[in-house]
């Protein structure tokens, strides 16, 4: 497991890299006192009307649910497809190739069925 320490180290380095640049810029960048409405949120040059903290229809909510199905499928696929090459070879799994093939088709078929269902239910339309 010690190898994965490096992942942590590099996550820190990345954060520090960006953080250092921002701190450095804070030191060298000029500051001009606030005149007028410089600190307002940008809204095409107008005074902003209300805040952006509004009840917002998250258009991708249903997409996210369908996405979840396929992402979990991908996780299942990683180990399954990883050993596909070794099936029937010495040292590999000894399962009938036809059986595996049929199972793969069945598994993906179920997912495609879900996709078609979502499609017919007009889930895959934006807005």
């Amino acid at each position: 497991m010690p190898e994965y320490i490096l992942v942590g180290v590099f996550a820190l380095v990345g954060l520090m890299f960006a953080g250092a640049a921002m701190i450095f810029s804070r030191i060298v960048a000029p500051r001009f006192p606030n005149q007028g409405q410089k600190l307002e949120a940008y809204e095409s040059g107008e005074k902003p009307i209300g805040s952006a903290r509004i009840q917002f229809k998250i258009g991708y909510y249903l997409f996210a649910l369908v996405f979840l199905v396929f992402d979990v499928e991908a996780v299942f696929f990683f180990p399954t497809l990883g050993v596909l090459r070794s099936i029937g070879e010495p040292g590999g799994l000894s399962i009938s190739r036809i059986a595996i093939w049929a199972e793969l088709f069945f598994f993906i078929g179920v997912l495609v069925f879900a996709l078609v269902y979502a499609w017919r239910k007009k889930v895959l339309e934006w807005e």
Partner: protein
Amino acid sequence: MTPLSITHPLGDWIRQQLPSPFAAIANGLIAVIAIAMLVVVTAIFLVWLERKVCARFQARLGPTRVGPFGLLQPVADAIKLLMKENIRPRTVDQLAYFLAPLLPITGSFLVLIVIPFDHNLQVLDPDAGIVYVTAVSGMGILGVLIGGWGSNNKYSLLGSMRAGAQLFSYELSMVLCMLLIVMASGTASLRNIVLSQQGTILDWWIFKLPVAGLVAFLLFIVSSTAELNRGPLDLSEAEQELTGGFHTEYTGISFSMFFLAEFVNMFAAAGLGATLFLGGFLAPQIGWHPVDQLLAFIPGFIWFAAKAYFLIFLYMWTRWTFPRLRIDHLLSLEWKFLLPASLANLLLAATLVLFKWVIP
């Protein structure tokens, strides 16, 4: 799994000279410095290249004044961005606003460390390299979503919501294309994937898997363009509709952090594409001995860079050639075309691999 830090001869030499904990730290330091330098140089060079390529596509010259061929233009730009006043709007969410620019660049650091640049030039080679890449590349999405929401600006909110939908949708077909290579090579470690393509050009996965490899490569290019937030699929920052998209409220250096991450991610994605489909650091061989020896004499990292920059040129080419898609068209493209296509392609490849219709 390779031992801690780089497995370069330099790493071995340091391991002989120093007791083990210090050697590990020294190697780690070298890796950190090397990757940080790579990030900076790549970003600077790609900014220059993008401007030059864009200019040529529009029959202009691009930057010419600062340095030879305008090469120092991005350096001047970087200095300018550093010296800009940091304007933080009154209404932003402080924590989210500060955190957001840090995340995308961290994500690109984490992707870069597993990419094999040469035979011995890879910081870390996890057995589940592909899974790792898909996991850490999600950090960019987080940065965009947090930044867009934290800005408290309607344009930013819209931009980040679109980005959310776009980025995770296209992740699907990208993962399926990478899975195809995992299946064909029987390993998820990036280094072993490269080594599984040893031989002539026809042994690269793009050609070795008949039809399926080429289709997967094309799907990978399209979906990674969307993942990188680049035109024609850069909906989250469509200037004409959303001013700046999620980074509307960011100025100076915090804006350039998003910008930097975008370019470094482009290099990382191109490197990934080269590793998976084009034989990574391996020299292309044609099967005629004298030429092959000559080609193999050129160091691996040059081959890697050549392949990666070829893909980067493809990204730039599409960006400056095609008009931007509309958001509903973009999502239809993924869900109604790319996803079914990559599933069908996966099944085709599974059939090929299972019944040994691949050149072994």
